[in-house]
């Protein structure tokens, strides 16, 4: 049974209309990238991430899978692959939620209030519980190292390279931190 494609279209449209930068991977609307900024009142503030969103066949009855392409230090995100723990999403998911919800509500909530009882990054979870300031420091370090605009192929903030020789694709292939990128 085909999943409701009209719903996918609508959701994608709404996401794009809400001023999120969306990069479709193919025309299938199954997978795409979104640029996401760390929520303001969290240690993730200032970081930018490229998020890979995958809509399963059963969307919207099942939640989308979310993955951080560039590195992030967070108890519920696997450091190597960048995948967000599915259980955490599934627990609160309802077919009425859409993609805007994910980026406006769900992800910011997750970053502001990690769930230590279900960690994919045990070290981060432990650190958060034992030494919160150290945890926050670590988070910021990671942001500095891996979550800058140039890390996700966005135009760099500084006046580093005014020459536009490097195309966006080349930027991406340089970056080792990319995980799970589709073949061009």
């Amino acid at each position: 049974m085909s999943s409701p494609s009209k719903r996918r279209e609508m959701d994608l449209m709404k996401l794009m209309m809400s001023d999120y930068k969306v990069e479709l991977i193919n025309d299938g609307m199954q997978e795409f990238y979104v640029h996401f900024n760390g929520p303001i009142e969290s240690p993730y503030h200032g970081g930018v991430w490229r998020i890979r969103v995958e809509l399963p066949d059963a969307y919207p009855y099942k939640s989308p899978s979310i993955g951080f392409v560039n590195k992030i230090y967070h108890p519920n995100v696997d450091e190597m692959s960048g995948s967000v723990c599915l259980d955490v999403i599934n627990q609160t998911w309802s077919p009425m939620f859409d993609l805007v919800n994910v980026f406006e509500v769900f992800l910011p909530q997750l970053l502001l209030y990690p769930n230590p009882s279900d960690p994919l990054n045990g070290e981060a979870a432990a650190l958060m519980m034992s030494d919160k300031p150290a945890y926050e420091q670590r988070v910021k370090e990671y942001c500095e190292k891996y979550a800058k605009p140039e890390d996700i192929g966005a135009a760099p903030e500084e006046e580093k390279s005014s020459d536009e020789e490097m195309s966006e694709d080349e930027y991406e292939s340089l970056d080792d931190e990319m995980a799970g990128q589709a073949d061009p």
Partner: protein
Amino acid sequence: MGKSRRDKRHIEESWTVKPLHDHSQHHHHQQQQQGSDHESSSVPVASSQQQYIKKSEHKPSNSQKEEIEEKKEESQPDNGNGVDGVVTRLEELFLGVEEQELSEEQLRINDQLQEDELLAMESIYGDNTFILERQRGLRSFQIHIHIEVPAELTVTAKLYSVGDCNGKSDSSEEFSYSFQVQYLPPIVLTCLLPKSYPSHLPPYFTISVQWLDSSSISHLCSMLDSIWMEKPGLEVIYQWADWLQNYSLSYLGIDKDIILGPYGTKHDEDRRAISGIVSLEVDVPSLRSYNDEQCHENFCKNLHECCICCDEYAGSDFIRLPCQHFFCSKCMKRYSDIHVAEGTVNKLQCPEAKCGVMVPPGLLKQLLGDEEYEHWESLMLQKTLESMSDVAYCPRCETPCIEDEEQHAQCSKCLYSFCTFCRERRHIGIVCMTPEMKLQILEVKFVFSSLVFLVSDSPLLARRIKSAKILIVHPTRRNENKLKTRVLSSLAENTHT
């Protein structure tokens, strides 16, 4: 679906929004439902399906008065409800008037005008016009006039204390119940056209209203009289219907609220006024269910967008949950299938975020089909048991059993009585042992039966046996068990600390 809860004895639980069907089935079903929920509210007010079949019960008789008498006995409650009542009253009116003799020419003209007017009414009011059997050769018909209900109209039922029929009430004794409606049962205008209409006489008519008392209705009748008097000789039925539809409520002073009643007063002066109010217990549910049915029909006819799939469907393709949220049936089916297949039955709640109302089992049965429904049932059982912490599984047959305070359970299936901690046969007075401890005991037994006091490799065990102060004797079969028990218990004592 907003309908009242059904008695569990009813096999038919209709959760799906019914497809549109014709009027007669609709009314029949309505009466079925009403019959089960409360005492039969047979206030049909000349309901549609009866009209076409009904044959006028004329019995050829000499005296016309006799006829009327017979009719009166046959008719239903003497407030004139039902077709019989209306027909009777019209007869009364007819017989009460002496018609003029008219010329052939005039009769022909009137006849033609009447026919034209009826056609016009049919085209204006469509399905709401009903041509009745001719009475004594005279044309007869009925129009169901649906008033446009003002927004936020409430119907109020007032309950006065005993001995208070005049409406004079002690306000502390008064109790009232109000509800909002968007649809009211129609005002039914029934007409009998005399031969001298429209040239000399107006039509004989009755007005039936289910929710007005006879006094109010007689005011309406008087108004119709005035309308005729303004332009006698001209066709008047359309003016009547139009006035009733657009001005009757305001004429009666009804703006935002209709008060049901008064009950118990008999106002029979104007025989053309037929009131349908019976009693609070009957009228309130009757009006409510009429309103609900109409809202429902309206919903079914229109297109709505499903919030889940964003597709548009007619209202009849939607399923409404008890929390009033509605979704298209395709989505509901998919939603249920997915959760049952994944075993996530706890998430089978209303898809609306933060609603939390569980999808009712009756609906699930329809959505899933029998086989998958059984699957759902077993999943639910499993989840429920898992959430109960004092459940242990029988070591022999895996049946879930309930644990008591002493860490003991007895399987209801195989009757095995076991300790829930170590899963061995119940051992009263002896503390549980870990597998390591059990292994050590085995060694000790070996030692004893071989008559050689060979301490096992475990220095701990040796220490313990020494400290237990056990008398080592030549173990015979008889005392071996005793010894074993003593060793075990003292070992247990020591480990317990």
